[in-house]
């Protein structure tokens, strides 16, 4: 009987040790980055403007190592684009990095998803998820990308897979970039694409490292 218990304890310890050996070293959560300092001021045809209103997560409590920043720009033709950037560290709950769907729904918007389309940047293709949101008379077109570890998230199921994969590689931080414009429809997405291409080109190297998946 004692031999049995000893055997069971031995197996438990063995499994624990095996896992400890195979498991990749976890990076402890580092200092939170200062995202606001990394967002470019004036670039291409975009001039910063006072932010009018921005839909934020209903509970925007910022955890250790996390950061969130927002800013708005106006194009030479007068379109205003509002941008929200968020970063979550390894070991943080970066998966919950405020998904825009949840933010907008929480604030009473109707949200519908209208597909994924990639933009082409000097630092690789970035798949953008498109949303159309509506609350009373206010409509906003939204595009965002979500980096989880070294990949971009394109669907909920894909996200679960990534969650598993990045655990094996030990690479677990994440970032979100969301842009929105008032009004609806196709030409808003063209504005988003143009804006984000200019934005990526204007990012300092440190900002690119945090916000984009590395090649």
């Amino acid at each position: 009987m004692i031999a049995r218990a000893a055997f069971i304890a031995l197996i438990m310890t063995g499994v624990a040790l095996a896992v400890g050996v195979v498991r990749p070293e976890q990076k402890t959560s580092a200092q939170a980055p200062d995202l606001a300092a990394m967002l470019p001021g004036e670039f291409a045809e975009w001039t910063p403007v006072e932010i009018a209103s921005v839909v934020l997560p209903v509970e925007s409590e910022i955890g250790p190592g996390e950061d969130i920043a927002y800013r708005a720009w106006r194009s030479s033709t007068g379109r205003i684009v509002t941008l929200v950037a968020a970063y979550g560290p390894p070991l943080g709950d970066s998966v919950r990095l405020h998904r825009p769907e949840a933010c907008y729904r929480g604030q009473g918007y109707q949200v519908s998803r209208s597909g994924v389309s990639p933009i082409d940047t000097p630092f690789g293709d970035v798949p953008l998820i498109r949303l159309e949101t509506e609350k009373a008379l206010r409509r906003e077109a939204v595009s965002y990308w979500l980096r989880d570890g070294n990949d971009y998230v394109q669907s909920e199921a894909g996200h679960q897979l990534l969650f598993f994969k990045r655990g094996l590689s030990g690479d677990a931080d994440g970032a979100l970039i969301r842009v929105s414009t008032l009004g609806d429809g196709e030409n808003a997405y063209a504005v988003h694409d143009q804006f984000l291409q200019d934005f990526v080109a204007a990012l300092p190297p440190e900002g690119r490292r945090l916000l984009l998946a590395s090649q």
Partner: protein
Amino acid sequence: MSVDDASSLSRRQLSHKEGAVCVALLALGWAALYAPVYFEFAQTAWRREENGHVLFIMAICAGAAWARISEGRFSPASSGELFAGAGVMAIGLLVYGVGRLGEIDLFSSASQLAVAFGAVLALTGWNGLKRLWFPVGMLAYVIIWPGWAIDTLTAPLKLFVAEIVSQSLFAAGLPVAHSGAVISAGSYELLVVEACAGLNSLIALTAVGAVYLYVAKRQSFTVNLAVLLSLIPIAILANLARVAILVLITYYWGYDAGQSFLHEMAGLVMFAVALAAVFVIDALAALIWERRS
């Protein structure tokens, strides 16, 4: 202690000393497996509000298991039970490995259920498991559910709470309406946050209810079932009442009053009322079904 029957070794009961050594060995193995997990959870998962109950439940499990084990009278498992237990444990350890390597808190935490079940079965058989079902079963409460699962559950629950509360207050003649998770009461706007969805009170009330049933030791299966089934609607109603009370406090006494100590008070009072309702239902059910049995 009964007299050992020398002819059937498997029927013999364990001595206290043997039992203590087994428990100590298992505790060591458990610590090797789960101490690193607990250490990590203490910095991440357990800090989240929705997992606030986990440490209490672990204490209850340990206490209940200890109380049973110190009663003694456990006999060794048969070889069939040993194999079944080893199989369940192997599954548990596999889930553990996947959870640890893939950093899936759901798997690492849920594996405890299978490992404990398997270890008890392999050592003391179905009889031992029957006596330890409560601490083993309560481990279901220490499972860490992933954020997306909590969100998918609480997001519609939040809207449901906002809708029911605003509609009933509106029906009562107050100027209350909602848009999404935002309730407007008179000139105030209140946000129905995650905590208002009532998941925490649901978990707490069902856990306390289970402990109560375990301690009360009702003989009748029907009584136990009636109380168990009543826990969920009671928790939901209590939460709706809590949110409605908060809206009323804000409406009549202002925003600051609604966020003051009254906020916590409303939660505590409604939890007490809900518990009282559970006891009343338990007493009624016992009155109806237990006399006949």
